[in-house]
């Protein structure tokens, strides 16, 4: 490489560097075009909007009468690829004397869940939905084992 081409390379390098810095300088002076958000400050400011389909954790909605829609069919347990769901059922005596299967505890192992949505797909009665909570970290692993049905909750009438 001759001296002339060496010097011209140096100058063209500096020129290309400056053209890159022109771009960074543009964003340095145009604060409104910066899209970065500060977490967790954006939570307080209400800038953190999660879409309704966001898969945070499996939840079981209960209505005001403490009733859920889970019949205990265990479709979700079968569809779960990593065994995060365990449903313990019991036989409940109906008012007319017949026995019927109902859930006793709906155990959800959040520590094993991969949020694949297959259980919600499999549920025939829409008893479970994906919640919006995403800050799952706890100091004790035992807290990640959750029981989703509330105490003394009942199956909603009419859900088969």
């Amino acid at each position, binding site marked *: 490489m001759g001296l002339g081409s060496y010097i011209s*390379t140096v100058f*063209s*390098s500096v*020129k*290309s*560097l400056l*053209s*890159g810095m*022109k*771009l*960074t300088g543009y964003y340095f002076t145009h604060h409104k075009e910066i*899209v*970065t958000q500060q977490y967790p400050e954006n939570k307080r400011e209400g800038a953190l909007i*999660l*879409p309704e*389909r*966001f*898969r945070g954790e499996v939840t079981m909605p209960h209505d005001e009468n403490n009733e859920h829609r889970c019949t205990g069919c265990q479709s979700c347990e079968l*569809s779960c*690829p990593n065994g995060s769901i365990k449903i313990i059922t019991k036989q409940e005596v109906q008012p007319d004397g017949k026995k019927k299967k109902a859930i006793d505890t709906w155990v959800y192992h959040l520590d094993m869940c*991969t*949020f*694949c*949505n*297959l259980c919600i*797909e*499999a549920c025939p009665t829409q008893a479970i939905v*994906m919640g919006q909570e995403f800050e799952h970290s706890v100091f004790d692993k035992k807290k990640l084992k959750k029981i989703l049905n509330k105490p003394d909750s009942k199956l909603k009438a009419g859900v088969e």
Partner: protein
Amino acid sequence: MIEHNLLEPDMITEDGDFVINIGPQHPSTHGVLHLKVWLDGETVKKVEPHLGYIHRSIEKMCESLSYRQYIFSTSRMDYLSAHINNQACALAVEMGLGVEVPDRAKVIRTILAELTRLASHALWWGCMGLDLGAVTPFFYAFREREFINDIMEETCGARLTQNFIVPGGLMADIHPNFVPKTKELIKMFRANIDEYNQLLTGNVIFQQRTQNVGFLSKEAAISYGTSGPVARASGVSCDVRKHYPYDAYDRVQFKEILGTTGDSWERYVIRIDEMRESLSIIEQLIDNIPEGDIVAKTKQVIKLPKGEFYSRVETARGELGVLLVSDGGSTPYRVKFRSPNFSNLSALGHIAKGSKIGDLVAMMATLDLVIPDVDR
């Protein structure tokens, strides 16, 4: 102390070569890749990748899962093209079942796959700069990637490991915001590729570090089994989307970008051009999403007939093949993944031989390796 270290048998070979280890905890290896490098001064004489640090036996795991369940685990192979991996798995099951996927699902799958490719290439571009010491590109690339992730989050519910595909179609219909947001992305991305070029492509220092190093000839590219942008940079026409169109790729017009020289610079340029092609594919499809079902009817417990089913797709890194062997039961008898990164990594020894150690990281960056896909 130093003298003692030098006398260690592993450090210096009989020929006087210096042996160093790069990784498995090195930021530029993009994961837990361990490279053993034989050096003569600064010249690389031999590179030996050591694998297995992130082996999770996904293939074996899939054999105990049903055909509906095994799709999700493949998101964890090449996590940057998770959606395309899922697509390959679903295509294999659909081939076995003989179901016809509804047109709407086909088109949406293709758009999502191209969005995944864009996100993956954007991340690669950021990391490429980072590997060569330029930190700024990383933040610019994440701006676009974040936008794509938001689109994914809105429609699929997850940002990275979407698991939106079920055998026969899609899990849900697209979100009402999907079409306008994707159109906005196309507009934004086109303008931002020019910013990419201004920031990094036009930089003379960057050009001199990538041009005329890391040659991979056409013959070597074929013999090492490379695919994707790595092989196309060497002039091998190997785009699965073009040669064996799946889903909706047969109804779009796009160019297969081929290089000639096969050096690091060519591999860089090809990916930048591929981003433009992906944008044009999305642009062709986004206005023509047909109405109709999003999923074909399949039984709750899928059982494939006895036999072997092979599907292939083009991920952001190359050709992914899924081989399913079925014995007629509800779980696969054997699952084999032909992953693009494994073959692309095998070419690294050939590419790096005889070059300087400073260029090794640049070459590795242009291969765009994702280590969990190498080990599976």
